[in-house]
């Protein structure tokens, strides 16, 4: 077992990796970064949305990694944490939504703005993540049955597409970060589809067979 694999299998390590970005804003705020202090609420809003996008793109890349490199220990290690990372994406999105509510200073503006397509799409993304988080409980899996659960959780891909649009539309100009957050995921998914199509046509020999 390589050190990297051991590290990635560790729940403590992964949880730390997930929690740290949430603590990050303390740094510029305590340091007195004026650009952040000009509107700390908006900074927090953007930061938590940004982390939610990264986590969502990250968790969705786990399974294509395993399909593409089934015997790669790192991919196997990462796939142990799918639920953890997925639920974290939801938690960050929920905090992001909460900050949006505070940024809008309450219901009247929040309600007015939510009708804008870009915010509506953000809300829809959040609702999908909410459903997926709730049904990530073992009880829900049993209740839904494996196949239905799996189909439902394919909505995560829709959520990723919506999140990418939401993030891109939040700025006046197209923000390049959308490309480096969601670009690799897109590449992996295309590679996975190509791989699955190829192996469906010509079944690959099983390992050891």
């Amino acid at each position, binding site marked *: 077992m390589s050190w990297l694999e051991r590290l990635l299998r560790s729940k403590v390590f992964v949880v730390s990796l997930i929690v740290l970005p949430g603590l990050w804003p303390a740094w510029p705020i305590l340091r007195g970064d*004026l*650009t952040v*202090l000009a*509107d700390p609420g908006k900074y927090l809003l953007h930061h938590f949305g940004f982390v939610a996008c990264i986590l969502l793109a990250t968790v969705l890349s786990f399974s294509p990694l395993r399909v593409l490199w089934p015997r790669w220990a790192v991919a196997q290690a990462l796939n142990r944490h799918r639920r953890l990372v997925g639920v974290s994406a939801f938690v960050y999105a929920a905090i992001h939504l909460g900050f949006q509510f505070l940024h*809008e200073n309450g219901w009247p503006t929040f309600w007015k703005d939510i009708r*804008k397509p870009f*915010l509506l799409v953000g809300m829809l993304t959040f609702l999908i993540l909410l459903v997926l988080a709730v049904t990530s409980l073992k009880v829900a899996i049993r209740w839904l049955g494996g196949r239905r659960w799996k189909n439902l959780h394919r909505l995560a891909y829709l959520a990723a597409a919506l999140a990418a649009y939401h993030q891109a*539309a939040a700025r*006046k100009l197209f923000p390049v970060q959308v490309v480096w957050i969601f670009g690799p995921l897109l590449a992996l998914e295309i590679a996975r589809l190509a791989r699955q199509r190829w192996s469906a046509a010509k079944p690959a020999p099983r390992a050891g067979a």
Partner: protein
Amino acid sequence: MRIHVPKEWELPESSVTPESAYAARDRRSFLKTAGLGLGGAVLLGRRASAATTGLPPVDNPDFLAGALKVTPYDLATSYNNFYEFGTDKSDPKEYANDGWEPEPGWSVEIGGLVANPGKWDVEDLVKKMGGVEQRVYRHRCVEAWSMVIPWDGFPLARLVAFAQPRRESRFLKFTSFLDPKHATGQQQGNLDYPYIEGLVLPEALNSLAFIATGIYGKPLPNQNGAPLRLVTPWKYGFKGIKSIVKIEFTPDMPVNTWRKMAGDEYGFFANVNPNVDHPRWSQASEKVIGGGGFFGLRQPTLIFNGYEKQVASLYQGMDLRKFY
């Protein structure tokens, strides 16, 4: 190394009001603490330091702060949109002060349909405009945030009179600098550069239209558009083109940069209007930068940013939804 060459009209640092006293904005208590009594009145006029052509900058009594709460200087110079230096709010302060030196030697060209075309050194031009005054204006960004800024400069109408526009001239076209070597955003090509803005001639003649050469009684920092920029407080901030190198008088409406970039989102007029939303967000209210607290203050946006009395007549009979 940066060597600061004081301009002949610049006052020594020692005569600049301490920021704390300025921020207090309470004349009387400021004078009292300064212990100046009557003599203070003289000093008061000299409070602002730079870009003043040797004449003391005078507070324009029509545009005092009054009930407006002036944004702290540090925030107004740290939270900027100046895409020439990057799209993050922190970029302009960092990258506009990293090798780009607008002064000395900046010249402004006035051309097009005018009787008095020419190219002027910015200092000479400011002198020709006959001194600098200070006006406190509301500033509303199209991104739904606002500040209150004391600008030092001169009315744009004075420059128009100086240029002597011909009868066929109907618009002003402003062009900003082009220096991709020093302007990181221009290197990336995040917008179509040089940045262009425009006004209808009657807008330029409106008493609110202003060319700023300083803020808070100090020379305009690079990130705020040194050495001179346009200020049209009833319009969204992006109309306030920074670091101007050319002003042309034209018969046709210039295509301003943001309109060219996304004409469905940014128009030519860009008047502040709470009833006409940006397609992606509401313009009904605005976040007050430095408004206090973590989630700060949100206030309703006013039509023409509160300058309805001064400018509404310019747009009489115009469909403001169509001409956003």
